[in-house]
């Protein structure tokens, strides 16, 4: 009986969490423009969505910024993580604290600080400023996904590679990088997801003519309801869901492999919520 009550409470919370998404999805297939009525099934909004120039352009912008910022952030972040791993004492503390700064700062503060920087250095607001900002908030997350992998790394692997005649660079490239690859990939996917999910920072650092999907949705939503947004939400939700499943399956497989192999300290939960926030 108590167990039944407990379960119902959780199901109620789930209903609360999923109801808005379900409503959006159902309305994206609704033929009646006025909501509340069911006007029959239609794919009209999806067709209109793909014919909408503004939305399509912002989709391209989102993907370009997402892919390039994720790639660059992954390179910088992975190198940084290797460096941080080999640094000790005060410099390490200092770097880690500054790394946490964009993670802990309210998003709007990160956004306005970057905006001030670009104004101050007289940069033209547009693709470049967007890209720089996205890399900036992505790098810490890449570092935080790669560092645990480095900590799990067998210290003697690198030395063994050197003893067997590798140059330090070869040892890094052929031994260390393959070993920490799962962390790098997770960081990359995370950075990409964060980038396409971001609104606040993009809103402050974009220029005229360039807008990401989030910005387009914001300006459309401010003018009221638009069935095309429902269709867009459905697509984006499905897409992000697929990405999330890939990441989770990867992590689960990794953990299983590790459990079967060497003993590894338990990692943080893969259900980390910090990445999908406002």
């Amino acid at each position, binding site marked *: 009986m108590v167990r039944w009550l407990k379960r119902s409470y*959780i199901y109620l919370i789930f209903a609360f969490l999923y109801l808005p998404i379900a409503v959006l999805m159902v*309305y994206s297939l609704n033929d009646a423009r006025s909501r509340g009525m069911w006007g029959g099934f239609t794919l009209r909004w999806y067709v209109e969505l793909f014919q909408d120039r503004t939305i399509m352009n912002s989709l391209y912008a989102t993907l370009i910024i997402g892919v390039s910022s994720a790639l660059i952030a992954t390179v910088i972040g992975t*190198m940084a993580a290797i460096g941080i791993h080999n640094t000790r004492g005060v410099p390490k503390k200092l770097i880690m604290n*500054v790394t946490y700064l964009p993670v802990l700062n309210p998003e*709007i503060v990160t956004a306005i600080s970057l905006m001030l920087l670009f104004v101050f250095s007289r940069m033209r607001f547009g693709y470049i400023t967007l890209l720089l900002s996205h890399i900036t908030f992505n790098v810490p997350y890449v570092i935080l996904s790669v560092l645990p992998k480095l900590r799990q790394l067998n210290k003697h692997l690198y030395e063994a590679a050197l003893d067997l005649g590798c140059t330090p660079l070869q040892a890094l490239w052929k031994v260390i990088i393959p070993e920490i690859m799962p962390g790098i990939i997770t960081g990359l996917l995370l950075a990409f997801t964060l980038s396409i999910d971001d609104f606040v920072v993009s809103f402050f650092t974009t220029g005229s003519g360039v807008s990401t999907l989030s910005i387009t949705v914001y300006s459309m*939503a401010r003018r009221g309801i638009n069935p095309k947004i429902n269709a867009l*939400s459905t697509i984006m939700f499905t897409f992000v869901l697929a990405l*999330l499943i890939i990441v989770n399956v990867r992590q689960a497989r990794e953990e299983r492999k590790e459990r079967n192999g060497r003993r590894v300290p338990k990692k943080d*939960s893969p259900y980390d919520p910090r990445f999908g926030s406002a």
Partner: protein
Amino acid sequence: MKRLSLTPYVIWMVLFTVVPMLLVLYYAFTVPTEGGTTWSLENFTRFFQPIYLRVFIRSLNLAVISTLICLLLGYPAAMIMAGNAFKRKHVIMLLFVVPMWMNFLLRTYAWLTILERNGFLNSLLTFFSLPRVNILYTNGAVVLGMVYNFLPFMVLPIYSVLSKIDKGVVEAAGDLGANPFQVFIKVILPLSLPGVVSGITMVFMPAMTTFVISRLLGGGQFTLIGNLIEQQFLVVGDWGFGSAISVVMIVVILLSMAVMSFFEGEEKDVALW
């Protein structure tokens, strides 16, 4: 050699994290004059005018209410999920997190569809011949939006602390004669405090600084302090004042984090994030 790989990041960090923060401070503490700029506290004294203080208090108020609701809804949820009501715990947790991955803006927009005058809620009410409600563009809608968006931030840290509690301790309390209520008050609750503290911080901070939720679901322009900052930067163009408000906000958040870590006590195991 390996130190060399830090160089790009350090340069990046200084240029795009440290310098911008210093710029915010610079703009906050200076005012433009005819020949350039001078150091001044004017931006801060302006903030303490009643009109802006009212915005600040409203933000604080709504953030506190949302945080409390999240705590009241979230603690039992975390406790149930950490307990043994479900067989496949990790599936339940995954289901709980999935909505968080949907674009934050779309999640907020979804409530627009539900709450608007001819929206889902009102058609449902009409269907059951109940009176219609108009809660869109009120503070209630803003609180609802905040609770919806930030609830998982409360549940997850509490869940992770609760699931680490040694079952033996709970059983021992029972064996020593504590009833379930006493076990909860004297054992489980104190042990879960670090999670509660992280949860409160993680909900309070975004609730205090959001401008999107209030803009889409709330009425009026200067609903919350986040909106005020946005206006200063994107509409009014008064960067000094906008920076000063941001600095005040950072101070408030740092203060609340300090107070919170005081309550957190010795337990350092649980990271804020």
